[in-house]
């Protein structure tokens, strides 16, 4: 049901029956390693290309989520997924493996919450009894496509971020026990004219703030309603800017509530500059870490605001600025 301008409230509260997170070697050394279902030591995952390795990550995340929910892959009614690759090949090729009806999505790093909100909408509108939402990213494939070869020696500035090698999946059902998707706010494009691909946090922060404002305005909720409000991959730089912007807009989130998946996923000592990024960042931290905490009842109300920078490798060479978006999903138990 539409509430306000851009928020869906899911009356039936679709249940996240099972979720999974799969990661790579760098995530295994990270702060949230314990929340991953599977961690790989090899960034190639035994495959002969990085692209195949990313597809394997996504396949594994889907397999784990489907198994945990006690289903077989042919029982999945709809598969919604997105990633960062050109023509979202990781998602499409995983859909080929699953062999179920598929909706491919592209929202850059916001794909995880775009998939989750649409899956919840399908179930809430009775268009499906279950749906699998997933997203993935791989550090080497993202570097290869958007920046330079992985072994190229370029000095990155302190605002640059580290693309997460990981995939997360959530299997939603109409009924059952578990964390429930209660609302979603679909973001609009915000472009503040920034064009530096090594400073995505600053480019995406206004989009996150716009969606957070819209969410609280549409639902007429107090800012302290949620236990955690986490942005997807703003990193340390973007998080600081988003906090300052929220204060400026009179929406000050108390300390301890506002955080960012890109800051949480890695340890301080890891050389990730401003923090993690990529579809896999919000997907693994939400579908792994946060949902685990909800199942342990450490958290009851969660708002994930996944941010995406919708540029292409060509658009920034042509000096275009970066259009950014953020989708927010509220999960409660």
């Amino acid at each position, binding site marked *: 049901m539409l509430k306000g301008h851009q928020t869906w409230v899911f009356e039936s509260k679709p249940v996240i029956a099972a979720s999974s997170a799969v990661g790579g070697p760098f995530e295994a050394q990270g702060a949230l390693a314990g929340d991953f279902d599977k961690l790989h030591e090899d960034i190639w995952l035994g495959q002969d*290309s990085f692209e195949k390795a990313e597809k394997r990550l996504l396949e594994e995340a889907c397999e784990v989520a489907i198994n945990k929910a006690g289903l077989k892959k042919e029982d999945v009614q709809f598969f919604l997924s997105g990633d960062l690759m050109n023509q979202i090949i990781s998602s499409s090729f995983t859909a080929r493996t699953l062999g179920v009806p598929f909706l491919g999505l592209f929202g850059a790093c916001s794909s995880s919450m775009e998939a989750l909100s649409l899956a919840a909408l399908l179930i809430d509108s009775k268009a499906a009894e279950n749906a699998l939402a997933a997203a993935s990213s791989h550090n080497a494939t993202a570097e290869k496509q958007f920046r330079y070869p992985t072994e190229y020696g370029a000095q990155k500035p302190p605002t640059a971020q580290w693309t997460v090698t990981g995939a997360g999946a959530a299997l939603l059902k109409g009924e059952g026990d578990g964390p429930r998707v209660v609302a979603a706010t679909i973001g609009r494009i915000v472009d503040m004219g920034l064009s530096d691909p090594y400073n995505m946090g600053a480019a995406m922060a206004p989009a996150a703030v716009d969606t957070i404002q819209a969410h609280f305005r549409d639902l007429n909720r107090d800012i302290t309603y949620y236990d955690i409000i986490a942005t997807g991959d703003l990193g340390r730089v973007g998080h600081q800017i988003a906090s300052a912007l929220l204060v400026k807009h009179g929406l000050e989130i108390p300390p301890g509530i506002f955080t960012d998946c890109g800051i949480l996923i890695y340890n301080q000592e890891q050389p990730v500059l401003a923090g993690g990024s990529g579809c896999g960042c919000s997907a693994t931290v939400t579908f792994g870490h946060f949902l685990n905490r909800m199942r342990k009842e450490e958290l009851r109300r969660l708002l994930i605001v996944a941010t995406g920078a919708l540029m292409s490798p060509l658009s920034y060479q042509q000096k275009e600025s970066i259009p950014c978006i953020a989708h927010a999903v509220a999960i409660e138990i």
Partner: protein
Amino acid sequence: MSNKKKKKLTPTQQEYQALANNLEPKRPVMANCIKAFLVGGTICTLGQGLQWMFIEYFNFTEDTAGDPTVAVLIFISALLTGLGVYDHIAQFGGAGTAVPVTGFANTVASASIEHRSEGYVLGVGGNMFKLAGSVIAFGVFSAFVVALVKITIKKLGGM
């Protein structure tokens, strides 16, 4: 940012960029310069050592020792790229590793390794000079311009 570019931005965008700019950590330019000096200097010292070795022990002259010296540096750089070490040295050394011949070798080697998965012809062959290509194109063109200048001055009776 240039003023021309700034003029195209709306007041809201300008205001935001000023706010964001204040909160962003800046590139540590001074520290980077010192690191680049030390790392670049070390590479050049190594090159000097190699040149001396070739003159002293392998019967090269000062004019001919340059070629084997550069070849050895390129080999070391490509090897370190393949072993996955070079990019870490570069993150520390910055321009210190980019400017000497080692940086050029790294661009070719890293692009070749990266695109091995697309095959030898379209992958390695087609992408090998992806980064190095512009260095070659503009390097050759600059050399051509400099040569023209030199010839002109010579003809006019200078040098």
